């Protein structure tokens, strides 16, 4: 016979899981990995903004050898690929107190809000953030219409 003691914290955890399932992760890039820390569902995390002429994409990707970064654009689809190096293999697993950072290859594709000109895309990797500037195609740029006053 096993003795099961009632653990209020376990009950709370079950409730938390139920609530999470109910809301699912739709539209939210963050999933609660533990009660303490959120784990991103996608890597790298992206922010997209735009102005009249350009679309700007920022990717949060620290510790990546810029040589491995590969950014391609086809019409309105942006693809970011790369590899985050692991720390030295010489570190034994038992030497770790914490190992929260992940490593490995990643690919992420994103549909941009408008079609962009693949010829005029610039990408810059600065302080662990990839900044991509994509020029909109002429047809996608907003046109200022003069209002004639009669």
């Amino acid at each position, binding site marked *: 016979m096993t003795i099961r003691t009632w653990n209020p914290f376990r009950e709370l955890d079950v409730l938390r899981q139920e609530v999470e399932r109910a809301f699912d992760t739709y539209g939210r*890039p963050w999933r609660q990995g533990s009660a303490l*820390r959120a784990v*991103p569902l*996608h890597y790298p*995390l*992206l*922010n*997209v*903004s*735009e*102005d009249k002429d*350009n*679309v*700007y994409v*920022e990717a*949060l*990707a*620290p*510790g*990546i*050898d*810029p040589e491995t970064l590969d950014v391609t654009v086809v019409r309105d689809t942006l693809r970011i690929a790369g590899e985050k190096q692991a*720390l030295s293999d010489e*570190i034994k697993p038992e*030497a*770790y*107190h*914490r*190992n*929260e*950072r992940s490593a490995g290859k990643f690919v992420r594709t994103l549909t941009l*809000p408008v079609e962009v000109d693949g010829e005029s895309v610039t990408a810059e*990797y600065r*302080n*662990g*953030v990839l900044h991509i500037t994509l020029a909109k195609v002429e047809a996608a740029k907003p046109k200022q219409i003069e209002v004639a006053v009669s």
Partner: protein
Amino acid sequence: MSERTVAKREESAVADTRDEERTVAPVVDIFEVADGLAVVADLPGVEKDAVDVQVDDSVLTISAKTAGGRPGEEVYSEYAPADYFRQFRLSEHVDQEKIHAEMKLGVLTVHLPKVEKSKPKRIAIQMAS
């Protein structure tokens, strides 16, 4: 080594409490090296000069400011640029004089060498004749 949950409040009590709320705890790797500990933290978007690493009363504090501002209007957002803040309590005696840190590609590495006396010492065993 344990994460310090109750931060020292004396100095932060004066600061704007809203600033504290908006900080993000960076993900870290902490591991033992031959002469002490190494802490590796992901701090994307942080300039080298904007990082502050302190050891006070055997509590390691990493805080960093991100250079904000993005061009244009937001279309889609998965992260909010926020400052970083995380503290750890160090169980070993760290030689404060020898701590050094480096920043590369948005990754901070802090080396925390142990003080001489807390390093393992090999004891020679004498053969009893």
